[in-house]
């Protein structure tokens, strides 16, 4: 596997500008002749499909949802970063770049991150022009807030519904192109495999989720914007349909998978309330701007919050990290919460949470201001828990939330399979080992609106154009494989439901490859996963038929892929014998209990090559160099 990051030459601030000039252009008259498949129409895919359509390419877009407006991006609450410096508080492209590299714990590519920071400016302009109703100040200009570990106010937001409003902007741009005939939209179409012909990505195989029809679709280039894989943990804040299928299938067809063990656990979610829960709900971390996190200082203290006097509370983040306090980065805030709960300080009926308390904020700002800032989040919390956060502190606990790992891509967002591009959360992205809050929306939109449409054009301009139809033997072979897999799933008729196996996988992953990992646990997981996978293929029960709307079959396919992927994730966590960002190896801690990186041996992206199900994959490395942000131990004290 060749890993050439293709980073353009020149000073970091000029790389993207120069590269844009150096890239080849497709003659406008020819654009329509090129067909581009975009899988996934969330922020990344929706923006890319709309923009490619606008540029004149012949775009076919696919989503398993009934409409592009349902993509998981819709659920993002807190906001989107941009280095606009509208607040005049010292922000700049360079500062956003710097913060992102450092926040990612030095496991991302400097050149990509700088480009992301540059493009952050254009994203806000674009969204506002589309009518995205960002929060504004009384003078009518855009408002900002500071978010998750940033010391400047660079986060743009639309109440607690930023993702919704940005997605609707992209969705509307996409629908406009659909109406114009430049984009053909395939809703309720799930990609189940990738078609590679002569070493290039040439198409995909999909299943129509109502008719069950399996079809091959051919193109000159394929883009995957299919989101993240947090649902490998079963319980996560991701929407129920989020999956690893398209990325995993691409991986099995030759695309390197980078840093699968880099997952982010979000510190502020509502703790699990019972056995039968299917997903966890995130409370935007913007709440940490005004809420104070604490636990009872004495382990095992079961008194209600109101009866615990000030002196017997431990505001542990403020205590350990005096300068960042409640705004410490996600990985740190999560880990510290776990430590508190593990040490017996947990609160709530299942003793599985910590308090997030707004009493001081309400006293300082008044209930109206607090309600203006967080009203909808408070309502959501009250609906779920039956408790009123204006009166009793919220209960929160970390939960799997975001995946920094993903398909390896070069500077052009192209995977190791020529003609296959990956954008948004699906790629291994710009966030290194830890993503900063409000940076995923930014990355998805930078990839979708501004990067991929140009780099895919550059690829098309140079690629040999050989029209190919779905009857091509290579395409039909993949169609048959997909049909066989389905028939197999439906034929087992065992005694276990898909969910019960998914839940069991989730538990293995949470226990051994979750917030804290160690070699022993990971080795154990590597024994348990193949056993569970075997149990699945021998004993799962998938009711119904292949030729109808069959939600159990859809789930079964996704869980089958998670069961393979999970193993690679554990291999990655085991071989990355250091702690960094969200990857916390218990064997590697500093005296203060922080993650201890090993830059000498691990300043690289680990890129996995598939060898076969159950076979150990091959680990490749893309070395990372840091010329601008000096390698340093993160310190948020």
């Amino acid at each position, binding site marked *: 596997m060749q890993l050439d990051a293709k980073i353009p030459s020149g000073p970091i601030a000029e790389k993207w500008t120069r590269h844009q000039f150096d890239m080849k252009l497709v003659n406008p008259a020819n654009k329509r002749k090129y067909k581009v498949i975009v899988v996934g129409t969330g922020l990344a895919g929706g923006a890319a499909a709309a923009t490619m359509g606008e540029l004149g390419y012949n775009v076919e877009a696919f989503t398993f949802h009934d409409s592009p407006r349902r993509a998981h991006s819709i*659920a993002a609450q807190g906001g989107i970063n941009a280095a606009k410096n509208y607040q005049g508080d010292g922000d700049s492209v360079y500062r956003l770049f710097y913060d992102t590299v450092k926040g990612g714990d030095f496991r991302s590519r400097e050149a990509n991150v700088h480009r992301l920071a540059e493009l952050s400016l254009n994203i806000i302009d674009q969204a506002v022009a589309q009518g995205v109703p960002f929060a504004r100040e009384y003078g*009518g200009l855009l408002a900002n807030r500071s978010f998750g570990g940033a010391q400047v106010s660079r986060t743009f937001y639309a109440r607690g519904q930023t993702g919704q409003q940005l997605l609707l902007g992209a969705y509307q741009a996409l629908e406009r192109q659909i109406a114009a005939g430049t984009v053909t939209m395939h809703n309720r179409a799930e990609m189940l495999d990738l078609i590679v012909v002569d070493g290039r990505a040439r198409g995909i195989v999909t299943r129509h989720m109502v008719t069950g029809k399996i079809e091959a679709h051919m193109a000159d280039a394929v883009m995957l914007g299919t989101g993240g894989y947090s649902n490998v943990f079963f319980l996560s804040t991701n929407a129920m349909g989020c999956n690893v299928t398209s990325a995993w299938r691409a991986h099995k067809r030759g695309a390197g998978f980078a840093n699968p063990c880099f997952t982010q656990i979000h510190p502020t979610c509502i703790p699990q*309330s019972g056995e039968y829960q299917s997903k966890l709900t995130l409370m935007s971390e913007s709440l940490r701007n005004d809420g104070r996190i604490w636990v009872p200082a004495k382990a095992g203290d079961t008194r209600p919050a109101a009866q615990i006097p000030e002196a017997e509370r431990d505001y542990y983040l403020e205590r350990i990290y005096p300068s960042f306090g409640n705004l410490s980065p996600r990985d740190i805030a999560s880990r510290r919460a776990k430590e508190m709960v593990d040490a017996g300080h947990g609160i709530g009926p299942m003793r599985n949470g910590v308090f997030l308390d707004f009493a001081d904020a309400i006293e300082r700002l008044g209930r109206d201001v607090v309600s203006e800032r967080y009203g909808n989040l408070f309502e959501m919390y009250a609906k779920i828990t039956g408790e009123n956060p204006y009166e009793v502190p919220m209960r929160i606990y970390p939960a799997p939330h975001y995946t920094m790992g993903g398909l390896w891509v070069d500077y052009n967002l192209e995977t190791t399979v020529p003609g296959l591009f990956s954008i948004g959360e699906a790629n291994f992205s710009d966030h290194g080992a830890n993503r900063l809050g409000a940076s995923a929306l930014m990355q998805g939109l930078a990839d979708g609106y501004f990067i991929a449409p140009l780099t895919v054009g550059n690829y098309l301009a140079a690629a040999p154009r050989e029209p190919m139809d779905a009857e091509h033997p290579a395409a039909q072979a993949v169609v048959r494989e997909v049909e066989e897999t389905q028939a197999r799933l439906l034929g087992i008729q065992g005694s276990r439901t898909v969910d019960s196996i998914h839940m069991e996988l989730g538990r293995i992953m949470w226990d051994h490859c979750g917030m804290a990992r160690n070699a022993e646990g990971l080795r154990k997981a590597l024994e348990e996963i193949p056993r569970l996978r075997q149990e699945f293929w021998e004993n799962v029960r998938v009711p119904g038929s292949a030729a109808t709307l069959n939600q159990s079959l859809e789930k079964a396919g996704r869980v089958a892929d998670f069961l393979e992927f999970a193993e690679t994730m554990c291999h990655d966590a085991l071989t990355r014998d250091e702690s960094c960002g969200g990857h916390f190896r218990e064997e590697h801690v500093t005296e203060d209990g922080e993650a201890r990186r090993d830059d000498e041996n691990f300043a690289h992206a680990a890129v996995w090559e598939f060898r076969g199900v159950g076979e150990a994959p091959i680990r490749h490395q893309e070395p990372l160099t840091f010329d601008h942000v000096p390698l340093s131990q993160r310190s948020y004290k």
Partner: protein
Amino acid sequence: MDLTLHVWRQETSSASGSFQTYKAAGVSDSMSFLDMLDLVNERITRDGGDPIAFEHDCREGICGSCGMVINGIAHGPHKMTTACQLHMRSFSDGDEIWIEPWRAKAFPVLKDLVVERAAFDRIIQAGGYISVRTGSAPDANAIAVPKPDADLAFDAAACIGCGACVAACPNASAMLFTAAKAAHLSYVPQGQTERLGRAAAMVMTHDEEGFGNCTNHGACQEVCPKGISVNYISRLNRDLLKATLTGISVG
């Protein structure tokens, strides 16, 4: 608690459907309505049956996927609450619950509780956007937007496209949905140029899709989980009138 469910089962669009009865035993207060359905589906599956199909994804009241009529009310008994955000503490032991899909000509049933809402996308295609090419936007702060307008735009933009308004309307009209998008774009300066044409085009497509006329019943606003106001329908109608008077046609 133990409940009795009467659920609409229908195999395909063309099949005829009927209510089937299921026991939901051992349901806890803290479960969401959809967790409860998951539980029932697990049992149906283990017993060799075909689980109840229902649409859902975010389970946070924001994606608009879920939607079902619960005891005669779209999204169930709680105001401003989607089916996925409804929790079982709203029910009591021994309750009987009737669960049906949205019913509207423009929303054909695909299976059980799943309906096809692609007509909403086509209404957006007709004009529910601002025509701006990627990369051609001026600086975001070049145009100030008065905060009250921005807030109104946001209130209208909060629509999640769930379709409850259609399900609740005696005419199966989608005017609340249509008006919410038109209003959102009409409150921001960027949306002015296309405003009247947008209104005319969106309403024309609304009618062509087979949604009924709005007769100011107000049932839509009652069930809307995002509190979208019927006032937006008046605003849309005013724009529509202006479009007609100024001779703006839909081409």
